[in-house]
């Protein structure tokens, strides 16, 4: 297990370095940082001065390595616009995004697993078809559109929920549903297909032959086998949702990382954009790693072969 973990960690580190290079190169290629800092209507002299002052005249590779070195020592650089350390700015916005991510994942899991189990147990009945319809709609409907529908119905017409901001818990209800519904179908389908397979397995027949109740057979014997891949997918989906929350945060005016990313792109605030992309890819890599480890912890067969 230790050797396996080291391998995975090295691979994860490689992925992050690669993403950082790509992010840096792409953002620098699309925007001239000196021009961005100087702002519109600046004179050519002012731009040249900024270029020297910030070191933008140095070669790209040199500046990339400098940035990378800063990150390694915990310094994400300084925002061009806000004149404050990027780390502080991200620190202010991250909690909102993490909160939204966790709530959405919880919502997705709480809907997906019971619905998936029910669909499998009542395979080919109306419940099963209902569950499949819900998941097809979730996959087909773009989540900004679903978010807007929620706003129209619950915010504008019924006036039950606030449509913008992040002040109270009510502000998180619609964003959670909108983002969670995006992650739910994949989890539901995996639960359903895993359960259908598990319910036909020999060990389920054994459990029935022991006289166990249907509830024990479904939850203790079938679900505990079917849930293994769902846990990993859930971790990966959480990464998806951190990325996907850019749109949802903008639609609902939640002042999180996604909102910050959009604003920073608009203002060509490169250090902030680069740091956010790097941070999200870092989360993503960590979550995939976590999914592997979780799978190993839950499945006794992997646990012992990896040891």
């Amino acid at each position, binding site marked *: 297990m230790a050797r396996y973990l080291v391998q995975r960690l090295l691979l994860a580190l490689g992925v992050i370095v690669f993403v950082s290079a790509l992010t840096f190169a792409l953002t620098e290629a699309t925007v001239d940082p000196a021009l961005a800092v100087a702002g519109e209507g600046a004179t050519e002299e002012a731009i040249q001065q900024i270029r020297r002052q910030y070191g933008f005249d140095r070669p790209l590779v040199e500046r990339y390595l400098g940035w990378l070195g800063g990150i390694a020592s915990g310094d994400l650089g300084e925002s061009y616009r806000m004149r404050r350390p990027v780390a502080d700015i991200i620190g202010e916005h991250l909690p909102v995004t993490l909160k939204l991510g966790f709530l959405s994942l919880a919502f997705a899991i709480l809907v997906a697993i019971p619905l998936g189990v029910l669909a499998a147990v009542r395979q080919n009945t109306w419940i099963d078809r209902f569950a499949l319809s819900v998941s097809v709609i979730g996959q087909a409907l773009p989540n900004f559109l679903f978010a807007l529908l929620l706003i129209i119905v619950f915010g504008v017409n019924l006036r039950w929920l606030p449509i913008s901001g992040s002040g109270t818990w009510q502000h998180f209800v619609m964003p959670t549903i909108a983002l969670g519904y995006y992650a739910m179908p994949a989890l539901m389908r995996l639960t359903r297909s895993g359960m259908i397979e598990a319910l036909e*397995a*020999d*060990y389920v*027949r*054994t*459990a*029935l*032959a*022991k*006289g*166990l*109740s249907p509830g*024990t057979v479904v939850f*203790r*014997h079938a679900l*505990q*086998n079917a849930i*293994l891949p769902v846990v990993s997918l859930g971790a990966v989906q959480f990464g998806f949702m951190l990325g996907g929350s850019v749109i949802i945060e903008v639609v609902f005016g939640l002042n999180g990382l996604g909102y910050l990313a959009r604003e920073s792109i608009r203002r060509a605030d490169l250090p902030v954009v680069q740091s956010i992309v790097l941070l999200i890819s870092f989360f993503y890599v960590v979550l995939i790693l976590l999914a592997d480890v979780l799978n190993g912890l*839950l*499945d*006794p*067969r992997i646990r*012992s072969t990896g040891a």
Partner: protein
Amino acid sequence: MLDVANLSVTIAGRGGAIRPVRDLSFSVARGETFCIVGESGCGKSMTSLALMGLLPRAAARSATRLALDGTDLRSLPRRAMADIRGNRMAMIFQEPMTSLNPVHTIGSQLREVWYRHRGRNRAAGEARALWLLDRVGMSSPRERLAQYPHELSGGLRQRVMIAMALMCEPALLIADEPTTALDVTIQAQILSLLRSLQDELGLAMIFITHDLGVVSRIADRVAVMYAGRIVETAATADIFRRPAHPYTRGLLECIPVPGRIARRQPLPAIPGQVPSPAQDIAGCAFANRCDQVRDACATARPPEAGVAAGHLVQCVLYGQAGSELSCPS
């Protein structure tokens, strides 16, 4: 102890009903091993599932009598049937590799039966599990409790399955080809284990197999099944020495015995195909493959005739009970 009359299983399907088990009647006494032998697809596994009440959802069971120790199993509500399963009647299966749950320890799977039928007493359940693991011949039973199925070989897993079936001291054990998936040496060990457990615990056992070698080692009485029906029932010695039904005789001839068949001679085989369980069979199911077929075979179901004490056969050759005691050749 177990009394079965006219047990049938019908599976409704789009192309009409399938009847894998047709009008089975037999009884099993305390301490007896009753073997049901037949080719694959003859309905023997369906029979065992029907007895346990574990048929797939699409299959329906009917019988004029189905009683365990006087309890009529036909009309029992689901819950009451589940109270009997794993408790008064238990079952072991053909596939030890997949019959145990991979994510639970051996101990928890054993204790679970105890909790279900004897109450949630961990110490008592564990004591019983330890005693049984030792009894089925597993070394260091205490360590086994903490192990997972994938850490055990097929033979050991089948021993665990046997221990699990015996947790609540059932009166009847149904063993559905429990040794088919095992090596020959392990197979012999498991058979002698079952035999000794049976003597010790006074178990009644229904042992399902396609292997006549296994039958000769373990059975007290044998029922030969063909196309969903029992065609012959007799004490084990009678089946091997005086087989009456042409199908039984055919089966016995198919066993390669050194010296009986000349070298390079093909092994005898029964020609033709087993009728499909979807087919309606008016007369004898074996008629189309039988070398002694008569006109009567095609039209009416052969009556059951006694050829000796406890030796019953469904074949027109024995139309009048007791009239033909020797084998017609």
